[in-house]
C-alpha cells in the first residue's frame, strides 16, 4: 500500500510542487494550509509522514510538531520540516520540539525524495 504523506504549508505553490513530486514517486499525498487544518485532518486518521513548513498563520510548524508528538497514536510519526539555510536557530528549535529531519528550501525533487527516504521506506 502506498505510504501516506501530509504536506502542511501555507503556500499553495509549495504544496503543489510537493504534491506533484511525491505523487509521481508513488506516495499518497494530503495537503493542509496550516497547523490547525493539519490538526483537523489528522484527527483519527493514520499517516506515515508529515512534512511541515515552520512559518504559518493560525498554528505554526513548531506548535504542530509539539502537538503531533504529544498526541497518542502520532508520537512516532516521522516529521520533516521545511526551512532555509539561514534559519539555524529555528532548526534547533524544531528538532527539540520533536522533528525527525528537515528539508532545505529551495529544493529539487531529488533532494526532497532523498530526505524522505531517510525517514520512511
Amino acid at each position, binding site marked *: 500500500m502506498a505510504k501516506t504523506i501530509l504536506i502542511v504549508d501555507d503556500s499553495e505553490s509549495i504544496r503543489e510542487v510537493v504534491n506533484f513530486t511525491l505523487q509521481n514517486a508513488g506516495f499518497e499525498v494530503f495537503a493542509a494550509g496550516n497547523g490547525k487544518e493539519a490538526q483537523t485532518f489528522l484527527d483519527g486518521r493514520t499517516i506515515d509522514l508529515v512534512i511541515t513548513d515552520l512559518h504559518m498563520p493560525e498554528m505554526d510548524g513548531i506548535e504542530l510538531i509539539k502537538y503531533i508528538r504529544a498526541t497518542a497514536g502520532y508520537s512516532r510519526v516521522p516529521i520533516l520540516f521545511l526551512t532555509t539555510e539561514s534559519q539555524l536557530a529555528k532548526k534547533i528549535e524544531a528538532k527539540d520540539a520533536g522533528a*525527525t529531519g528537515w528539508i532545505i528550501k529551495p529544493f529539487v525533487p531529488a533532494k526532497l525524495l532523498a530526505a524522505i527516504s531517510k525517514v520512511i521506506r
Partner: protein
Amino acid sequence: MDNFQKKFLEEASDLINQLEQALLTLEQDTENPELVDSIFRIMHSLKGGGGMFGFDNITAYTHKLENMYDLVRQKKLKVSREMLDITFDSADHVRSMLNDDGSKTAEIKNNEVILNNRIDNILSGASSGDFKDLKTNDEVTGNSDVVTYYVRVKPYEHIQRNGTNPFLLIDELVGLGKSKVNIFYSNIPDFENFVFDDTYIYWEIIIATDKNEDAIKDVFIFVEDDCEVEIRKIADRDIFTLEGIDPLLVCRHDFPFDLDKIKSLADAITALEKAKNESVAKPSAGEEHIKKFAKESSISGIRVASEKIDMLMNLVSELITTQAGLNLYADKNKDAELTRIAESLENISRQLRDTAFSITLIPIDYLVVRFRRLVRDLSREVGKDITFEARGAETELDKTLIEGISEPLMHILRNSIDHGIESAEERIKAGKNPQGKIILQAYYSGSQIVIAVTDDGAGMNPAKIRKKAIEKGLIPADAQISDKEAIDLIFMPGFSTSETVTNISGRGVGMDVVKRKVSDIRGMVSVASELGEGTTITIKLPLTLSIIDGMLVRIEDVDYIIPLSVIDTIFAVEHTKIENSFQNIINIEGVQYPFYYLRNEFGIGGEPPSKEEIIMVKYEDKKIGIVVDNITGEYQAVLKSLGKLYRNQDIFSGASILGDGTVALVLDTHKVINKFTKYNEL
C-alpha cells in the same frame, strides 16, 4: 533453452575444468609457455562460444582474461600469484554465470566488478603503451577510488522518539557500497527495565565505497544529536577483495571487528602489490605435472548424453536375459548347432556387457581435480599449509557412485583441513613437518573399491570423544568402551567433535551425515586414528554394477543368486552333519567354519535334501558358510531393483529374471551375515 546452448554449456563446463587443471599445473611452473598457451586457448574458446550462443556476459568477461594471458604470452606480463588467484576465481565466476537462472544476477554483477578491478590492477602494472583497448576497459570499470571505512553507529536510547527509524539509516549507509554489518545486542536490558520505544542496539559497519566521507556523514545528518557516529578510514582500497580477509569479516553479534588485524592485512597486501612487478616464478617443480597435463589433454573422447548410456545398459540387460532364455532352450533341445550358436552368442554378449560397463566408469581423477582445488582454497582460508596427494586416481567407479561419493569425500577433506591438521606452530611444537599432508588413496580390493583419506594431523583423542559423548548423552556415563569404539562414536548422529564451530566444517553436519550418504550408495565408512599421528577415514564401496556374475542356487523351490566375487569355495555336506553341528560351527576338512543355514534363517519349511551345499563366502577376512539345497550353476544376473515394498530389508540387493521367466533374489551375503549375526547374538 535450445540445443545449441545446452551443448555450449556442457562444453563450457568442460573447458572450465580443463582451465582449473591447467592452472594447478601452472602454479607449479609459472614459466611454462605451453601452459599459458593452453589457458589462452581455453579463454578464447569460452569467449567465442559465449558470443555464438548468447552468453554475451561471458564473452565480455573472458575477453579481459584473454587479454591478460595474451600479455603473458607476449612476455609483457609475468604470471603472478594474484593472477592465478584471479583466474581461479574467474573460473568460479564463469561457472556461476553459466549456471545463473536469473536469481543471482546481481551477485554476479558485483563479483564481476571486483574481478574486473583486480584484472585492471594487474594490467595497470603491465608495460603500457600499445594496449589501447585495455585502457578503455580500464576507464569503463575502473573504480580504483574505492576506499574502505569503518563506521560505528550508536544511537542514543531516545532516538526513536522523534520518529527516526535507525534501521533506515543503516540501510542507507549499506546502499553506498559493499559492506559487512555487525550488530551489538549486549545493551538490551532485562524485561523489567526494557522501555518499549528505546533503542539499545548499535552497529559496526565496514564499508567499501567510492563515495567520500561526507557522503557517509550525510546519511546521519538528521541524527547528529541523537547518536554517536564514528567514521574511520581503514584502507585506501576495497578490502573485500583481499585474499584471506573473509575470516576477519565474519559478523558475530557482540564481537567487534578486529580493526587492527584488518588494517594490517590491507597494508601488507598493498605493500606487497607495490613491490610486485617481479613475479612469483619458482624453479620448475612440475615437470611431471606438465607431462601429465599434456597426456590428459591428448586423450580424445566423445561426449555422450548419459541417457543414451543408460539406454545402452538397459538394452544390454535385456539382451542378456534373452540370451539366458536361449541357453535354456538350447539345453532342452539337445541341438548341437543351436547350442553352438547360443554359446557364441553368450560369449559375445558377455564382452558387450563388459564394454558397455566400462563406458559408465569414470576414473576418480575426475573428482581429484576438484579436491585439489578445495584443499588449496580451504587450507589458505584457515591459514594452514597443506599438500594434497592422490594415489590410484585412475581407479574407476560407476558414474552414479562418483556422484554419490563426491559430497562425503568433500566433507571428510574439510574435516581434515579444519580439525585434523594442526596449525604450523603446533606441528613444529610436536616435532612434525610444518606442512601438513592429506593423501587420498583409491584401489580395488576384491569386490570392493576402497577410498581412504589420510591426514598426518593431530589424530582423535578417544578420551575426549568419550567425554563428549557422555556429555551429549550418547552413551551412559559408566559405559565401558574401547578406544576404537570411542572413535567410532563420531559417526553417531548429534556428535560433533569440534569445540568451536568454524565456517568450514563445523556447520553441525557431522560424520553421521557422511556415514548416511555413504550407506545410501551401499558403502561403508570406517575410521582409524592415532593420537598425534593422524587419522584415516576409509570408505568401502561395492562394485555396484547392474549386471553381475553370480552363482544360481536353490532352497526348496526358490532361486537365489550369490555374487561370484564373494564366493571362496563350495562343499557338499550331509544334512545330518548340519543338524548335529553345535553353535552353527561346522568342521570341514579339519577347519572349523561358522555357517548360516538359510532354510532355517529364512523360515522356509519343507523337507531338506539329504545332501546340501555349503558355500564359503568371504566376510571381511573370514570365511563363513551359507547353506543351500543345491547349486544350479553360474549365471549372468541382470540386477533389477526391488520395489518399494521391499525397502525395509537389505539382505537382498535386487532380483533377476531367469531365462524361464522366474525371479531369483540376489543375496547380499555381507548383509545376510551381518543381520543373522546380530539376530543370533540378541
